[in-house]
């Protein structure tokens, strides 16, 4: 337990220290990776720990992004209030989606969440008068200020992304070590059996999905606030597949896995695109290799081979 806490706190400390040493390009990249890793952390709560394979999480990410972005576009509410509204949007959408989608399971659940997500993406396009449809909109720099600090400033943005990541990361660590975390794993492993121990698995899964949706929305809001843009592409299928990929690569059902997967995938594409235009080919080969030789993902393999108690 101590070693695991040291590992997770150590990562938070290293990421903080990197703020002072990274060159500008990498500095911006890591801020982006940390923000997106929050999305993966949210996805991991639903998929990695509870076994809910959703193909529609982009709607929660977009709910956060548009919840915050539209509020700032049409009001003077301020970035903090916008972030709060974004969390409420993510949680509310996850609650409504969960109440309906969790009546299904397995492939049906995947399809229902995908349909919900597509409906949200189409709604963004339909209400183009407010959302500017496909083009998206810039979130004005003047509205992206917290306590006098401009989120557009590279240093402030990095520290804000670090704070958001640290909060989600440590929350995830706390959650999986709580009794609820163990029960979620029990549901993932054998839901009928968990029910026969007396657990209302529908409510617990709904709770997990709401938490997952809220964390994903926090990532979407953060992305919009830190990088100043809200766009419909973030609500598309691709952004529902990304967190699944990041979590699988990093290690589903591990706390550190979502970050490792996001970092790996981000840099795999970034570096390979510097070598060739066919960078997706390199990325694809690397992904196949990882899937073949480390099917449980990076942290999952670490847990299987060397660190049994890694949460």
């Amino acid at each position, binding site marked *: 337990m101590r070693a695991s806490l040291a590992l997770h706190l150590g990562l938070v400390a290293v990421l903080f220290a990197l703020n002072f040493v990274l060159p500008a390009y990498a500095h911006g990249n890591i801020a982006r990776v940390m923000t997106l890793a929050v999305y993966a952390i949210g996805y991991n709560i639903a998929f990695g720990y509870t076994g809910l394979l959703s193909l529609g999480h982009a709607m929660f990410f977009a709910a956060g992004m548009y919840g915050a972005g539209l509020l700032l576009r049409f009001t003077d509410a301020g970035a903090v209030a916008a972030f709060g509204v974004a969390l409420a949007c993510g949680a509310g959408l996850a609650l409504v989606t969960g109440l309906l989608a969790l009546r299904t399971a397995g492939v049906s659940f995947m399809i229902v969440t995908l349909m919900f997500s597509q409906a949200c993406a189409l709604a963004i396009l339909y209400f183009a008068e407010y959302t500017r449809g496909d083009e998206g909109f810039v979130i004005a720099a003047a509205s992206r200020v917290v306590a006098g600090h401009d989120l557009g400033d590279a240093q402030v943005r990095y520290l804000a992304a670090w704070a958001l990541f640290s909060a989600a990361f440590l929350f995830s660590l706390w959650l999986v070590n709580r009794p609820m975390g163990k029960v979620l794993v029990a549901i993932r492993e054998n839901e*009928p*059996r968990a029910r026969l*121990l*007396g657990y209302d698995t529908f409510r617990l899964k709904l709770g997990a999905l709401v938490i997952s949706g809220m964390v994903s929305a926090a990532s979407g809001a953060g992305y919009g606030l830190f990088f100043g843009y809200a766009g419909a592409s973030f609500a598309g299928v691709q952004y529902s597949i990304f967190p699944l990929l990041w979590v699988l690569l990093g290690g589903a059902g591990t706390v550190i896995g979502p970050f490792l997967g996001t970092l790996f995938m981000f840099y795999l594409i970034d570096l390979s695109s510097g070598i060739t235009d066919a960078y997706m080919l390199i990325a694809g080969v690397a992904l196949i290799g990882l899937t073949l030789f480390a099917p449980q993902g990076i942290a999952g393999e670490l847990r299987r081979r060397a660190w049994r108690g890694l949460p």
Partner: protein
Amino acid sequence: MLSVEGLTAGYGHAMILRDLSLVAEAGRITCLMGRNGAGKTTTLKAIMGLVPPAAGRVVLDGEVVSDLPPHQVPGRGIGYVPQGRRLFGALSVAENLEVALMARGSGTGLRAEVLELFPRLRDRLGQRADTLSGGEQQMLATARALCLQPKVLLLDEPTEGLQPSMIDAIRQAMLTLRDRGAAILLVEQRIDAVLALADHVQVIENGRTVETFDAAALTRAPERLRSHLGV
């Protein structure tokens, strides 16, 4: 006391149980026997609410439990160890017990009590459940059900496919539980196990009771039981 009263239940339009009645009394082991497909497992599932009754009811100490959703049945005092154990494979032995204890809001005292029945599990607390041997998995499945402090324990062929030393350990645990006052409803196919454990036997065919025996009658005429089972 658990009583099943005139239960008719099945899957879709296919009724497996037809007007089945039985009683599992405290401090007694009641064995449910029958050939494959007779409805033994369906009886246990119907008691747990997993197969909804078309007619009849299940009553525990005067309370009708067949109207409850399945997740509320264990809380009323019925523990179920299904065939095939069905553990939480990625969790350790200790975590499997912890999840069950949390469901009942029970603490470490009860865990120690349960581990007394299965001391072998004490040495395996940190081990992943899916890496245990078959016998240890059965012990854990039973121990986990006991963490709910059930008044009635339903066991579906708990010794199937186990080596003799494990079978002895599990039988001994059942006898201890019975002596502590639990009602045990055991689905069992092995006649030697039934003769060693049962206080009462009910034989079912096509979802109906065809004969019942008390322990004394069983000892006098085990061949009747064999003829029912076709062995």
